[in-house]
């Protein structure tokens, strides 16, 4: 612990010295009487004071939480000497806030008697945090010395974005070869009825549709759609974000990406992630709980990195974007590089859907006429951009804070039901 001298000690010592010298000079014992308690206190403080050697340990009740959850953090303090006043301040990173308890707080810490401070923390924002940083200041009984120490944070906490409730998901145009929950457009072994065709050599007898065969007087068999898995790549645009009042387009994007990844993996699809921005990061498509945790971990580390380098879709490794994969882009459509990259993906034949984390609610229309005009022009340019995507057969839906993701998914589904693929 670092010891620092209080100005109180200097003042008291000065007063004591001044009083004693004045008493001698004036020959008045009363002045010595006045100085004596100060001198006595200074001597007692200097003799009895010493490093209290405070030990601090921090404990979190869990290492993972969901956005909005509350968790308990315990600070256990123990001292080798009695500390009459110990101030403790828990350093909270932005994104975590105090829900219950006092921070900072001043307590008395008796010798060798551990005291536990219990604080409830609220996880305001998703992300990876290292918590447990504590500043402590112990004062000696007379307030002459302060002993400061800083405990470095070492408890890792992962706050996952809260999942949105979804009833349906965007259906990809093509499925893969493995079994899954998506009804394929192809025909094969499955449950969903597809069509009737004439019996061919090798068809199993259980596929024969006896009613149709009796009507046509020849053997007809049922054809079915098989249930297959799909490849889904979540394309996260991290070039830029718009932030206002603690919320941002990136927060929305991460929340949507986490929800979609979780839902697709739950139905045994292979899900990959491309974080396309100043820093390019990717995860090849995979399935299972481990893949979900990989994706969530990658999402938690998502940040905006300022980068002026031009990037196009060629920088993304080919195996990250498997053929016939459904690419769901979550983007504010603000950076020209990501706008071009998505159109490029579409031109290469990828099945693309765009969920636009709309920056419009985050922007201020301005007060003057010129500012409002500029705002309207900007919105019109965005409309024009969306039209370019629509013309290419890509569904683009606006999704903002406050509206459910389900609505955006339903809009994409409705668009894809009627849209035709177009060549770009």
């Amino acid at each position, binding site marked *: 612990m670092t010891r620092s001298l209080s*100005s109180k000690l200097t003042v008291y010592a000065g007063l*004591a010295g001044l*009083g004693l010298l004045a008493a001698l000079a004036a020959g*008045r014992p009363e*002045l010595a009487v006045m100085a004596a308690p100060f001198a006595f206190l200074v001597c007692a403080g200097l003799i009895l004071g010493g490093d209290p050697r405070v030990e601090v340990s921090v404990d979190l009740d869990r290492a993972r939480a969901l956005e909005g959850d509350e968790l308990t953090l315990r600070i256990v303090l123990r001292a080798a000497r009695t500390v*009459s006043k110990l101030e403790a301040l828990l350093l909270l990173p932005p994104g975590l806030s105090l829900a219950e308890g006092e921070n900072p*707080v*001043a307590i*008395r810490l008796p010798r060798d008697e551990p005291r536990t401070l219990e604080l409830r923390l609220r996880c305001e924002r998703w992300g990876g945090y290292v918590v447990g940083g504590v500043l402590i200041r112990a004062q000696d009984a007379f307030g002459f010395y302060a002993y400061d120490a800083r405990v470095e944070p070492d408890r890792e906490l992962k706050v996952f974005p809260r999942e949105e409730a979804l009833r349906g998901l965007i259906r990809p145009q093509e499925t893969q070869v493995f079994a899954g929950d998506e009804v394929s457009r192809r025909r094969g072994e499955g449950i969903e009825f597809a069509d009737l065709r004439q019996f061919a050599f090798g068809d199993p007898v259980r596929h024969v549709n006896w009613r149709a065969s009796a009507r046509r007087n020849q053997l007809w068999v049922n054809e079915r759609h098989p249930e297959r898995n799909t490849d889904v790549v979540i394309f996260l645009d991290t070039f830029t974000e718009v932030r206002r009042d603690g919320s941002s387009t990136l927060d929305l994007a991460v929340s949507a990406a986490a929800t979609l990844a979780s839902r697709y993996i739950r139905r045994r699809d292979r899900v990959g992630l491309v974080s396309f921005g100043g820093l390019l990061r990717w995860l090849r498509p995979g399935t299972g709980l481990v893949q979900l945790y990989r994706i969530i971990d990658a999402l938690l580390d998502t940040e905006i990195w300022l980068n002026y380098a031009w990037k196009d879709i060629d920088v993304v490794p080919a195996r990250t974007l498997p053929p016939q994969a459904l690419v769901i882009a979550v983007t504010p459509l603000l950076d020209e590089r990501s706008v071009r990259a998505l159109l490029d993906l579409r031109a290469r034949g990828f099945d693309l859907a765009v969920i636009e984390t709309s920056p419009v609610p985050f922007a201020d229309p301005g007060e003057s006429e010129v500012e409002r005009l500029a705002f309207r022009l900007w919105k019109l340019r965005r409309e024009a951009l969306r039209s370019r995507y629509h013309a290419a057969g890509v569904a683009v839906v606006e999704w903002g804070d406050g509206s459910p993701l389900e609505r955006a998914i339903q809009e994409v589904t409705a668009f894809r039901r009627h849209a035709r693929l177009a060549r770009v």
Partner: protein
Amino acid sequence: MIPAAAALFAAAGLALHPALSADRRVWLIAALGGLAVVSLAWALVMRWTTPLAWALALLGAEYAAWLAARGVDVDTRAPLYAAGLLLTAELAFDGLERSVVRSDVEVVARRGLQLAGFAVGAVAVGSVVLAAATIPVGGSVALTVLGVAAATLALALIARLAQ
């Protein structure tokens, strides 16, 4: 806020007593007392230690001026005045601290007891010193030099311990 107000109240009490009971040099004593209270108020508002030290020194100076105006009689209430000055100093230093840290009830209660203990202790120490000072041992230059040396030694010892 409470310690600061209590410190000001105590300082005002300490400043008023000599000013009201003096027969001579009333204006000087009152001016010293008033300056001390103003200086303390300034220190508490600005959270500065320097005006606080000045305030305590001025209260002592006011008392010394009152003693000088009073004559040769020894003031037997000096230990009480010393306790008052110590209490004022302790409360003022408490008042200087930022109040963003919420103190435990136990901390506040023990601090109250400590202040009471300091006051009683100051009266006791002051009485012992006063009793020792009134023992007739005669006066001489050698004894005065010894006193100055003892005071200097005490200060040097304090400075050494503080390092």
